[in-house]
């Protein structure tokens, strides 16, 4: 029998199927406008027969949409467990998704010691880089590549993603090199994330997960701000789904949704 962890995020649905702690299969589907349809598409895309999956544990902001789930865990617990299982030496997990950023300190068993989450603000999440990429009229991979070529040091002062866009317009009109603006954007989001990391206390090793971990420009800014190297696993956006599956195997999940999710 297999176990599956499903992470329903703002932008993507991720499924990881495990058996005895090992990943058997993984799947990512774009969430689009219809989360239910995306979830079902993800299930149907699996090679593993659904009938062979004995337990499904859901996590992510959209976990209430997962009708097939038998159990639920929070994103914090899933990220912590997934990171520790991926790399046992990890003690700090930075999880940056489309709409939330989290810093989590864990122990050697992947148990959460402390956590911090950005509150009601897109400036510490993937939505910020997306908005800035649109403002610069480039796609995200291009934004990341440009950032790594920066030779200048431009600061973005705005606390808020909306004001940051106005600031970007000012920089454009000042003929600031695009590479420097791209780096400034990544430095800005990194600043917010690092303040959360410092709040929970950084212990090495540090792992970055979530979709924004695919952005090399952000990874470089984060490593620079933390003054340490940052582990980015293969498929960083799947780590929480993996963690949910492992928590399922360990029997460490809630059987019902929090009333806030119903």
């Amino acid at each position, binding site marked *: 029998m297999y176990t599956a962890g499903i992470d329903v995020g703002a932008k993507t649905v991720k499924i990881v199927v495990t058996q005895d702690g090992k990943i058997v299969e993984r799947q990512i589907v774009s969430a689009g406008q219809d989360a239910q349809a995306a979830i079902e598409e993800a299930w149907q895309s699996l090679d593993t027969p659904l009938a062979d999956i004995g337990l499904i544990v859901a996590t992510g902001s959209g976990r209430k949409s997962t009708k097939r789930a038998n159990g639920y*865990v*929070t*994103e*914090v*617990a899933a990220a912590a467990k997934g990171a520790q299982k991926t790399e046992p030496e990890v003690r700090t997990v930075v999880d940056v998704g489309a709409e939330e950023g989290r810093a989590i300190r864990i122990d050697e068993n992947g*148990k*959460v*010691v*402390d*956590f*911090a*989450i950005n*509150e*009601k603000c897109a400036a510490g999440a993937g939505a910020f880089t997306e908005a800035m990429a649109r403002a610069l009229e480039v796609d995200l991979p291009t934004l990341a590549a440009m950032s790594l070529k920066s030779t200048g040091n431009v600061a973005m002062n705005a606390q808020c993603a909306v004001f940051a866009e106005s600031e970007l317009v000012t920089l454009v009109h000042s003929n600031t090199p695009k590479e420097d603006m791209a780096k400034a954007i990544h430095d800005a989001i990194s600043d917010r994330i690092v303040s959360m990391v410092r709040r929970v206390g950084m212990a090495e090793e540090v792992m970055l997960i979530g979709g924004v971990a695919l952005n090399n420009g952000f990874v470089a800014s984060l490593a620079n701000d933390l003054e340490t190297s940052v582990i980015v696993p293969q498929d960083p956006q799947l780590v929480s789904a993996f963690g949910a599956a492992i928590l399922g195997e360990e029997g460490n999940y*809630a059987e*019902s949704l*929090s*009333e*806030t*999710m119903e």
Partner: protein
Amino acid sequence: MAKYPTETLLSWSKAKEIRETYYKNYAAAHDKGGIRWVGGAWTFDAVPAGLGGDVYSLTSEPYGASCAFNKDFSTRAMEAAETAGYARDLCAYMRNYWGSILMNEYAFGGPFPKPDFIWQDHICCSHAKWYQVVSELEGGIPMFCVDVAVGPAEPFGTLTEAKIDYVAGQILDGIEWLEKTTGRTYDDELFIEACWNDFRSTSKWAQVCELNKAVPAPLDEKTMYSLYVLATLQKSWGVVADYYDELYDEVKDRVERGIAAVPNEQARVMSDTQPPWSALKLFRYLEQYGVVSVGSLYTFGLEGMWDFDPATGDLVPRPMPAKKPTTREEAARELVRWHLHKPEYQHFYDCDYKSQMMIAICKNWGLSGVMLHYNRGCEGLSLGIAENRLAIQEAGYPVMTFEGNMGDEREFDLGRTMQRVDAFMETLGVKKVAA
């Protein structure tokens, strides 16, 4: 099957009745020639009591909280204050209060009752301006303010006789001012009695909170909010002092019989700063985990009077003064000495003082963790709270924080906060109990 027996708190409905009577009395004060006054909950309410038995108050913060509890009323009050040009990041209680005046609506029905005078003390920057604005909005109302910023009390500092003189001297000046303003002759006996009731109320409330050291806790913090509030309304009122005596007896009985507030108590936490008044169901949500919030330094020490002993690291209820004052001067000095010991005054001087007292609660009330409200609605009580978090963590207690606003529900996300609670419970290793 519940782990512990539980019973309704019998005296809860009496507390509700006293509160309703208080607000009705204020509104109806003029009907029989009585006096209305307003001021903060920390103001020395025993002092105006010397003007007669028909003197009724409206204290600002509990009124602001009452507004916040009614989301529709509060939203309109906030918008009225903002339309009038007051910034959204000001004290939330204050905006609710000003909004009431601007709308001319009393949260308990009818027009907003205009006070005859303002009797206030400056406990924080917001309080210092609050009633200046009230006076202006109401077309000019006489106002007297007492400055209380003399430094921390024992054990953190020393309340020298000079410091007591400074504050008590203002109270004595204030009494003369009250006589001139109201045209009434001040009655020292009434004042002394009011002071003594003040000491009774606040000492007894602390004793009630001390009973929550018991396992299971006989009271949960949400219930305690309905009880401590009476001291914020008028701690010098004999009715309030008598009520706390009755409450203490009932809670003591609950402890002796092992009656629990949360029948499946499996973990204990405390909160801090004022709660988000529009969303107290957060505390009921904790009960799904068998978690009881036993109180906080706010709930214990906003009105309760305690002594902190750094040697033992314990908070104990402050004993009543050895003897009842016999003169106006003695009463004023004793009132000042008593009030400046309030735990919630101390962090204004150094947040470490508050950390020490919070850690004392963690230790002595047997806590598993702490939930701190990063309350944007109150600059005073959230002062230094991030430092408190660090200190409590260093003392070995897990802490979760949540952002919010005690009085402006537009700045609080209940759903997200409950999800934070879920994650915190995972951290504590606490699972939901069967219904």
